[in-house]
């Protein structure tokens, strides 16, 4: 039994750990295949089109077909690439992505069917398990950075530089948001954190930290709207522009495994891990929190977070790079830091013997004071805007009626009441054509026109 860890791994022999590790890898690979299908199907639904529906039932085998295609494609090596690093980069990406699930608890102690053998549904756990997850994530960035550099090409280098800056900045916000969970749970081991969420899941009391985590996890995995390292409009495909075939597939795999990783961390740290949702958790004296049921809840929550990924992707537009960085440094990190400070103060007060009612009264009084101050604060911006609206802009003279300037003050404007639009040249053309050849058959279309119609 490891001190500071809720699960008991003392029964696990080497071969048990080995089987668990193999199961995790199999789970991740199949989940990635499913995640690609899931993402394409959900985004397609959001864009009112069917999505992949040809291979297998509901198009489920589409990603398998894509993977086969990638395997069989030609492996192009760029001449100017740095061969060793070029090959090493996708490997680093995938290996680091595969490591994270080792500390994610799928459930509590489970009994292997047809035996008496019980073991935690988790490969391993130690007192700094969540920091280990962060370490794996920060190692995984090397794959992107080295891949971009070793391609010996401009766009990949730009993509990898962006990725470095992005991941370092968003990892800070992510780490700070995780700190509040450590403070509340009093531990950094994943099984202990899940055990601490028996009464309430942390995303409710720690809502600001949860919001910061969700934003920074999207930034950390380079997903839309934060996929600036591979922004197609600007960088072709970013750091993986020069990669093809299986090497590209490894980057692709790492990206989706990373999505699963951060979703699993969100589930474990904020959404109660494998615990059943509230009405079900009370059924039959907590029946749904024992045996194999928790695996179901864990997977359901995991895919809920994955759905959020897809939802965000289908809804939001890519940010501009400077906006994205200033958002990370000027909004996310200060908010996360302030929240950690506030939480630590509350924890300290709680330890110092201040009761909960006193705390709540204090917070309410402070909130009232702040709201009153905000209410009474002179609104300089609003006053200025009101003044401007009252006097009107000086450079806007009244135009005589009937004379229409389509570009008044340099802006395309519609006609004001009393002004008439000039006749449209296209409308006149139609009128003239109709008046010149009344009732005549249409002229045979030229070669150019016809070729357009046939396509």
């Amino acid at each position, binding site marked *: 039994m490891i001190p*500071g860890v809720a699960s008991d791994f003392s029964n696990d022999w080497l071969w048990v750990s080995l089987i668990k590790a193999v199961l995790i890898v199999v789970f991740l690979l199949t989940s990635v295949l499913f995640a690609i299908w899931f993402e394409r199907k959900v*985004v397609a639904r959001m864009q009112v089109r069917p*999505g992949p529906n040809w291979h297998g039932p509901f198009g489920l085998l589409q990603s398998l077909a894509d993977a086969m295609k990638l395997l069989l494609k030609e492996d192009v090596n760029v001449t100017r690439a740095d061969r060793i690093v070029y090959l090493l980069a996708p490997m680093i990406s995938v290996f680091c992505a595969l490591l994270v699930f080792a500390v994610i608890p799928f459930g509590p102690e489970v009994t292997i069917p047809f035996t008496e053998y019980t073991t935690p549904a988790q490969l391993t756990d130690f007192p700094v398990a969540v920091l280990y997850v962060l370490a794996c994530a920060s190692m995984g960035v090397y794959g992107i950075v080295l891949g971009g550099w070793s391609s010996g090409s401009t766009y990949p280098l730009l993509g990898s530089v962006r990725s470095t800056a992005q991941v370092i900045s968003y990892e800070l916000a992510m780490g700070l948001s995780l700190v509040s969970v450590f403070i509340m749970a009093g531990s950094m081991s994943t099984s202990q954190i899940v055990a601490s969420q028996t009464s309430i899941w942390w995303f409710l009391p720690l809502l600001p930290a949860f919001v910061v985590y969700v934003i920074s996890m999207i930034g950390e995995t380079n997903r839309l709207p934060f996929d600036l390292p591979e922004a197609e409009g600007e960088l072709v495909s970013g750091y993986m522009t020069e990669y093809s075939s299986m090497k*590209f597939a490894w980057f692709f795999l790492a990206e989706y495994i990373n999505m699963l990783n951060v979703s699993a961390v969100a589930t474990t740290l904020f959404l109660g891990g494998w615990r059943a949702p509230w009405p079900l958790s009370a059924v039959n004296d907590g029946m749904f929190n024992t045996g194999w049921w928790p695996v179901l809840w864990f997977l359901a929550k995991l895919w809920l977070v994955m759905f959020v990924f897809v939802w965000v992707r289908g809804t939001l537009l890519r940010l501009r790079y400077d906006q994205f960085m200033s958002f990370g440094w000027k909004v996310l990190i200060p908010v996360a830091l302030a929240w950690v400070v506030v939480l630590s103060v509350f924890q300290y007060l709680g330890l110092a013997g201040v009761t909960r009612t006193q705390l709540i009264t204090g917070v309410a009084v402070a909130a009232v004071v702040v709201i009153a101050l905000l209410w009474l604060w002179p609104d300089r911006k609003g006053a200025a805007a009101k003044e401007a609206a009252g006097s009107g802009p000086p450079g806007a003279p009244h135009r005589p009626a009937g004379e229409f300037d389509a570009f008044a003050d340099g*802006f395309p404007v519609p006609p004001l009441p009393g002004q008439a639009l000039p006749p449209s040249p296209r409308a006149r053309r139609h009128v003239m054509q109709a008046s010149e050849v009344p009732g005549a058959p249409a002229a045979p279309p030229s*070669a150019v026109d*016809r070729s357009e119609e046939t396509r």
Partner: protein
Amino acid sequence: MTASGAEAALFWVLAPLMVLAALGLLFARKAVHAAVCVMFVMVGLAILYVAQEAPFLGVVQVVVYTGAVMMLFLFVLMLVGVDAADSLTETIKGQRWVGVLLGLGLVVVLLGVIAQATFPPAVGLAEANAVTNPVALARVLLGDYVLAMEVVGVLLVTAALAGLVLTHRRRLSVRPTQRVLAAARVAALPQGRTLTPLPAPGVYAQNNAMDTPALGPDGEPLPHSVPRVLRIRGQERSATAVLAEEETLVARDDLRLIGVGPTSGEAVPAPVGLVETTSGASPGSTTGGTGTTGEDEDGGVR
């Protein structure tokens, strides 16, 4: 004190590799290769820390040093690109001798400290880690050595602030906001500028290369859809030529379908060089458009 079998095996596998990587740092030709070697040494060190029951130290080593510090080093190396052509002449006089002197001083100080230091008897890992490794570390760092921690923290914050101040440049003019830029674009409309980006080159059934202009909504080719460089070099193809070629091909296909055959030359005079152009252009352009990235598997917008 002897290590357990697994730990010894881990050490004897990792240690030679780490030594090799450390030598790689010294002898690697490219700076990035040296950085990768350092990265490997750091990760190996972290694994050894964890094996020696110091999981917090090991993980923090990876998060802080490998993940952040080394990443910044790599960042600079990639952007600056350290070459062998760098000048090795001294810019500050006597720099080398001062450096040697300071190094010797450090050695003397360290030797003195190490010779003077007396350690209390070891309490053993089990007792040190009784309240879990991170908690025990926290008690030592934030209890016994809290002043030293605070001083180091202040020093680091000062250094970071100094870095910010030294690299700060005062902006001489007002920074144009997005709104101002948009207004300027609109104001330039009467001068013939466009609001939108320039149109992309044309995409035709047999040709989507950069040298063919796109057709506007009125069916006229848009010359500014071809990159300016190609236009100046005179490497632009006319849209009419592309369309006429495709038209000929379609007509040939139609004739073949009704059984006339492609060789009946009078009906369809195939222009000389047509076959070469199309076969040369279309496979190249299709691979350029879809084949290289494989991003199409992704399906939708990204």
